[in-house]
């Protein structure tokens, strides 16, 4: 991460704009125990109350780290039912990083956000249809499979 990802200009700009970066050693207590740390690098997205909303384990290149952080931020908003903010971040993710590993989950979560904010089930079916076309081998396409019947 230090050699490739963190020096990347786009990564630096994204983190400066959206996040407070906090770095601690894997054995730092009490955080290591509090977060059940088992391996490094482990990257966790927290809200401003310190609540965890996403974690990844292992190296991520710049073109995967940024959408992963976008997804973590979107999940934070989703978990707190701030659907408009979640949708804004998901749209940005899908516009800027449509080929990233985070994109299929973003399509799924976008459908759920739209459903939960409107109570209209059509976005769920739409999410499945988009996943089937654009990410047919993704686990998120499988998870959305029941929505084809809506």
């Amino acid at each position, binding site marked *: 991460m230090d050699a490739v990802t963190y020096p990347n200009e786009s990564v630096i*700009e994204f983190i400066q704009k959206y996040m407070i*970066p*906090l770095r601690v*050693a894997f054995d730092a207590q009490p*955080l290591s125990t509090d977060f059940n740390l088992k391996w490094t*690098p482990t990257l966790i997205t927290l809200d401003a109350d310190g609540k965890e909303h996403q974690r990844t384990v292992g190296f991520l290149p710049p073109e995967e780290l940024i959408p992963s952080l976008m997804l973590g931020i979107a999940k934070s908003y989703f978990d707190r039912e701030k659907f408009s903010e979640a949708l804004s971040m998901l749209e940005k993710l899908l516009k800027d990083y449509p080929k990233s590993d985070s994109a299929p989950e973003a399509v799924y979560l976008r459908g759920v956000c739209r459903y939960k904010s409107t109570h209209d089930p059509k976005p769920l079916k739409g999410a499945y249809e988009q996943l089937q076309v654009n990410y047919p081998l993704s686990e998120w396409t499988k998870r959305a499979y029941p929505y084809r019947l809506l």
Partner: protein
Amino acid sequence: MGKTIIWETKMDVAIARAKAENKHVLLDFFNPG
């Protein structure tokens, strides 16, 4: 924009900044080697 990431090292400082700046926290557990 700066050229490097300026990391916080204390959780309470990071949380206080996140609240003040309306941002999320990226917590990176790393192996200093």
